[in-house]
């Protein structure tokens, strides 16, 4: 909302404050003012000049030599290039010594040999906002009204010595979308008097000669009043200047007044040419489906039954609260108008405007629902009287008012204790009453059960509960006076849930393993799975889609982290970072079978590796990441979470290398998988060998369930270590052999692990060597060589029998 400082001073005396000072006060009270615009962009000494005569410049076709009376005592000779200059005009004249915006100082000059004692100006040269002026006023000189006083300061005359403040209003403060609301706010803040006239009377009591019928619940009140015998013309300068200052284009003296009153009092108004309204009858009704109507902007609109229209018995003549119709428009031939002032349903106005892509100043006010229902008829009278005055017409009788539902002022009870308990303040009763009164609220002189009875003026329909009043009091009293305390109440234990702790710990483990944490978008392209060879995966390709995505690239909710991480890898590789180890703890979304239910959101811990990975010393060669480096990271994470007894089993799955991928299990809980990307995926993404793992947070939680850390007593008797190295076929998983070892070695086996592995020229083709280290121990005694040898033998036999293993020397 733009507020002209000059205009504001018509209603409240704030001339002793600078706009900046007033703006700061408003900001503190909850209406931020950050933009202050000087309308005078730097004009000094420019005056109204009278063009006495013009003649052609002897040396230039496009220049004219003008004789100007600028009130300086002697006529000036000024060379002018504007095509529209003509004798008799009043124009802005920048005399020698004056200045124009942009630090442009006017000096005596010679143009093509002819002396020029100044310059005649266009609106643009005066620094005016030409977008709002009629076209003919922006081409060439700015032609002033014929009664402009010669020699008058142009900035004074055009009312440019003004500052416009831009109020940033929150949606609840639509009451301040007009001067009246702002004036009450300022009056409350400063404790000053409102000088505004808010009540107007009709000249005669006879009802105005129109019939109004409301046929929809979406209009609760409609007032109409006729003004006849008027002449539509340009508005006087003061009115145009006021509208220009707040960014409204002046049109004519009828439309301008309706806009002026809307800005002054907050009530949107509309004027119909009464001669174009059939039977002098106005009907407020819902549109019919498919009904068409040409709005003021010349566009034919197709309506539907959700829209509210103004009609006569034959046709639609306007869209209620949104835009008037071309067929009832006030034009230069209009002599009789009917003015409309009404309350239209906010939601209906909003929806109609949205559906038709329209957004007018009137609509902005209606859709906030903050129209002062007590002002509807007053604003109508204000406008009708002013139009009659400016356009030479006559107000015909008294307004016709049709009321479907009367709006009563809200009455609220409020105790001082409630206010102070809620704010933590020590405001006194007098202070409280004073603030409410300054805001224009009526406070009863008596109390009911210790409570003040507060009557809220109808211009503040946002105040409906006691807390709304408390906010008003706090705002004006000053938020800065609220002390700082801490909640009293009983202590509540805070902290993280087990899942939150686990997530933090996983992230810590991964970061300490050398991975960089990333955060990626959850919206993906529908094609994201295609190049992974997962397009046919039923679970992954069943994705939730946005109704109105910003782009196809971000239009579905991800079911898989891999495409997100691949995007990050590609982004970094494009920037020449080729060694990458990244992870994200992120959400994936699986739609519910019932579309009315929310999707299942799951948390995935996913990592991706490409290029080199691992410690590198000076003079050492970096190591390309491989399966075991990545599996090592996964093993570390699982160990760090206390999840033991984890098994890995080779798996073939789309998107992953068939020989280098393992599912990760704890018993029958599937924890995730780890492996190399399928070479075809790498090719599609132009990647060197790349590895990926994915762990499912919910499964990790489950795998940890019931876990307790118990520390076994340290052993009292020595262990006996035995190694066994065997040759087996390459396709035999070491993990399987370990299982066999564990069962064959019996109860004296404390632990067994793979400690060496070889495959290559030192062993026969198709064979590999695997070495295990077995630790035997008894909790009760020192073991003898014989008993260990016997068990160790069993192990060898079992490996021979189970896998055709040969003992390696």
């Amino acid at each position, binding site marked *: 909302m733009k507020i002209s400082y000059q205009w504001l001073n018509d209603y409240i005396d704030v001339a002793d404050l600078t706009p900046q000072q007033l703006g700061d006060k408003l900001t503190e009270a909850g209406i931020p003012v950050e933009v202050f615009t000087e309308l005078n962009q730097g004009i000094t000494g420019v005056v109204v000049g009278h063009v006495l005569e013009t003649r052609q410049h002897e040396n230039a076709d496009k220049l004219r030599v003008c004789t100007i009376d600028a009130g300086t005592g002697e006529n000036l000779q000024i060379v002018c290039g504007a095509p529209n200059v003509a004798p008799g005009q009043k124009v802005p004249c920048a005399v020698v010594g004056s200045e124009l915006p942009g630090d442009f100082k006017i000096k005596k000059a010679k143009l093509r040999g002819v002396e020029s004692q100044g310059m005649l100006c266009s609106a643009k040269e005066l620094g005016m906002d030409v977008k709002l002026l009629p076209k003919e006023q922006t081409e060439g000189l700015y032609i002033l009204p014929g009664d402009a006083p010669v020699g008058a300061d142009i900035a004074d005359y055009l009312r440019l010595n003004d500052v416009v403040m831009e109020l940033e209003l929150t949606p609840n403060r639509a009451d301040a979308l007009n001067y009246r609301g702002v004036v009450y706010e300022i009056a409350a803040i400063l404790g000053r008097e409102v000088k505004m006239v808010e009540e107007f009377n009709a000249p005669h009591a006879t009802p105005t000669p129109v019939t109004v019928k409301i046929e929809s619940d979406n209009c609760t009140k409609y007032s109409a009043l006729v003004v006849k015998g008027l002449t539509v013309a340009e508005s006087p300068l003061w009115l145009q200047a006021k509208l220009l200052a707040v960014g409204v284009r002046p049109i004519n003296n009828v439309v301008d007044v309706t806009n002026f009153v809307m800005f002054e009092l907050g009530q949107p108004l509309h004027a119909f040419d009464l001669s174009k309204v059939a039977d002098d009858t106005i009907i407020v009704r819902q549109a019919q489906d498919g009904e068409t109507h040409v709005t003021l902007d010349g566009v034919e609109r197709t309506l539907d039954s959700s829209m509210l229209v103004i009609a006569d018995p034959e046709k639609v003549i306007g869209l209620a609260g949104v835009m008037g119709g071309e067929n009832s428009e006030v034009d230069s031939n209009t002599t009789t108008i009917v003015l409309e002032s009404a309350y239209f349903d906010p939601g209906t106005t909003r929806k109609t405007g949205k559906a038709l892509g329209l957004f007018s100043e009137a609509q902005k006010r209606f859709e906030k629902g903050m129209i002062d229902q007590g002002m509807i008829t007053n604003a109508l009278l204000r406008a009708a009287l002013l139009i009659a005055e400016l356009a030479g017409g006559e107000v015909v009788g008294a307004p016709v008012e049709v009321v479907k539902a009367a709006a009563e002022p809200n009455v609220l009870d409020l105790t001082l204790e409630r206010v102070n308990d809620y704010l933590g303040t020590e405001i006194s009763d007098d202070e409280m009453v004073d603030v409410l009164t300054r805001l224009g609220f009526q406070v009863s002189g008596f109390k009911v059960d210790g409570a003040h009875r507060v009557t809220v003026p109808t211009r503040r329909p946002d105040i409906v509960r006691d807390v709304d009043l408390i906010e008003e009091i706090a705002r004006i009293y000053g938020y800065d006076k609220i002390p*700082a305390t801490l909640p009293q109440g009983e202590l509540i234990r805070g902290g993280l849930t087990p899942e*939150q702790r686990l997530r933090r710990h996983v992230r810590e483990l991964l970061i300490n393993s050398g991975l960089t944490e990333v955060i990626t978008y959850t*919206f993906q392209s529908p094609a994201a799975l295609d190049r992974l060879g997962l397009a046919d995966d039923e679970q992954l390709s069943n994705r939730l889609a946005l109704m109105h995505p910003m782009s196809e690239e971000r239009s579905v909710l991800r079911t898989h982290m891999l495409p997100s991480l691949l995007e990050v890898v590609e982004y970094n590789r494009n920037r020449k970072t080729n060694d990458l180890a990244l992870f994200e703890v992120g959400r994936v979304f699986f739609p519910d079978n019932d579309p009315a239910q929310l999707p299942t959101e799951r948390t995935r811990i996913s990592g991706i590796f490409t290029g080199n990975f691992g410690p590198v010393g000076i003079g050492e060669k970096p190591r390309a990441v491989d399966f075991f480096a990545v599996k090592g990271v996964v093993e570390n994470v699982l160990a760090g979470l206390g999840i033991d007894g984890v098994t890995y089993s080779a798996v073939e799955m789309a998107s992953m290398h068939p020989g280098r991928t393992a599912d990760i299990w704890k018993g029958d809980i599937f924890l995730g998988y780890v492996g190399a990307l399928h070479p075809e995926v790498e090719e599609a993404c132009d990647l060197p060998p790349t590895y990926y793992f994915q762990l499912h947070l919910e499964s990790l939680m489950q795998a940890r369930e019931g876990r307790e850390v118990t520390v076994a007593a340290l052993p009292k008797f020595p262990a006996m270590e035995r190694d066994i190295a065997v040759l087996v076929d390459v396709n035999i998983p070491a993990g399987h052999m370990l299982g066999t070892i564990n069962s064959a070695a019996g109860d004296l086996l404390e632990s067994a692990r793979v400690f060496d592995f070889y495959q290559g020229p030192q062993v026969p083709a198709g064979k590999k060597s695997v070495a295990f280290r077995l630790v035997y121990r008894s909790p009760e005694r020192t073991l003898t060589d014989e008993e260990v040898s016997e068990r160790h033998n069993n192990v060898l036999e079992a490996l021979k029998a189970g896998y055709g293993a040969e003992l390696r020397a």
Partner: protein
Amino acid sequence: MREQLQGLKEQALTDLQGQESLQALGDWKVKYLGKKGELTAILRGMGSLSAEERPVIGQLVNEVRDELEAAHDEKEAAFKRAERNKRLAEEAVDVTLPGRAVPVGSEHPLNQLIRDVEDIFIGLGFSVAEGPEVEFDYFNFEAMNVPKNHPARDMQDTFYVTEEILMRTQTSPMQARVMGEKAAEARAKGQQYPDPIRIISPGRVYRRDDDDATHSHAFMQIEGLVVDRNIRMSDLKGTLLTFAREIFGDGVQVRLRPSYFPFTEPSTEVDATCHNCGGSGCRTCKGTGWIEILGAGMVHPSVLEMAGYDPTVFSGFAFGMGVERTAMRRYAIEDIRGFYQNDVRLMQNFKSRM
């Protein structure tokens, strides 16, 4: 024999001085002190001595032996020291060369900030509550006092999935969810009133915005909610002052400015003194000395009511902060997209997690 011993001693000591290696020193020891050495040879000649002389000479022999051994040991220690020093000198490395780098990862700056904020509030007795990113319109809007067609819906453009399901536009629906759950628990247990609440709720939210330097279609918020009997607006101020001092430093002041959110009344923007200039006014704070850090307010009675908390018994405050905006300020990052592009060259700045 005395002279003989004295002579041997002197000769041995002189000889010792000439020994230049551990090896030679060993030979010297064998020569003078060994089983077949010269001192032993003298000892063998003791048989010819009288009974009175024998103990005297024996004593003397021992003294000479001790003296020679001591001289030998000293010399040997010196040799060993010298040898070790030589070896140590050879073993010296260039300590200014880099170490064998164990790869160090980094925590994403947004998560780092969230963790810090969580820890501060946990210290104040808060729990962390999390909820779905795909949310019912009801929780996101209606339960937050924003019915359909409310003008406040203009403030945030929404990604809808169906007419009733959307990508949450704020973390505020967690207020309604947590209160609703507590109220349901109380009903199930037959309690007259639900339990008080102190939570913060970090998470991702979505707005239909074009991504540019200051806008992102997805970003993070941290919501806070305190509901109890007798919660006052001054408690909001005190809690957020404590928070601001924890995160921005001890000297920080906060200021409340009236504002509007549909789900709080009164509503306020919370400013902290500018971290850059300390409040004197600079470019960062546009000369005001203050920086907006979050939005807050007293929980609107309608919100309490809808969630099952009686507003005549309970009151509360809520706040919400933008994580990216705070992180951008904290780390002087100028483009919000940087958080989601994950350029590791940028991320590596966050190796230190303090």
